[in-house]
């Protein structure tokens, strides 16, 4: 069974439109959750992390926000998309204290802003 599920698989959105991407973790109690962004052909940039429900920490400012409404759910959103938001968004999870434990990634959401 798939542990981490991201939705949607892909999105094409207009500049200035809102965005909501989701991630659900199954079978893991109180995981640490992360959002990463990857430009085409580029490296992975950590955006947010959350170690508990209702608490989200920002790593970089990209006019995006994140929320953790449930223990197993992580949401990435913005009210106004920019062209620079295009890329591959990856949700990830880990257990334990800190990021120096195994981090596992989902299959990602491909976002194209036009």
């Amino acid at each position, binding site marked *: 069974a798939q542990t981490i599920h991201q939705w949607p698989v892909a999105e094409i959105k207009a500049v200035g439109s809102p965005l909501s991407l989701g991630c659900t973790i199954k079978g893991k109690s109180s995981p640490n959750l992360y959002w990463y962004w990857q430009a085409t052909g580029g*490296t992975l940039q950590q955006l947010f992390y959350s170690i508990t429900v209702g608490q989200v*920490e920002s790593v970089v400012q990209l006019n995006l926000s994140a929320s953790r409404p449930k223990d197993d759910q992580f949401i990435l959103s913005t009210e106004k998309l920019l062209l620079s938001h295009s890329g591959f968004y*990856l949700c990830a999870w880990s257990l334990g204290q*800190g*990021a120096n434990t195994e981090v596992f*990634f989902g*299959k*990602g959401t491909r976002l194209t802003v036009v």
Partner: protein
Amino acid sequence: QQQVRQSPQSLTVWEGETAILNCSYEDSTFNYFPWYQQFPGEGPALLISIRSVSDKKEDGRFTIFFNKREKKLSLHITDSQPGDSATYFCAASGSSGSWQLIFGSGTQLTVMP
């Protein structure tokens, strides 16, 4: 500020050869170094990792060599197969109080049959 560097940017080897991917870092507090394998259109998959207390970690055809003094590590893929063709990312993280996993720019490996 690039804290984790990878080289080469791309690498081509023949099937059966050993591919060597290099990684270096700047922050001496980094103590955990995972390598990820990513195929086009997919999320990265954890391949193998090492902690700074070790100088070598082996898993099948994949071996990490770690040099703490020089802040360098390398991933060796022996008996390379065409199915190993992918982008490989080196990453680093610090103490248990750190929540950032910092990735290098990746090495695109092509294994020719």
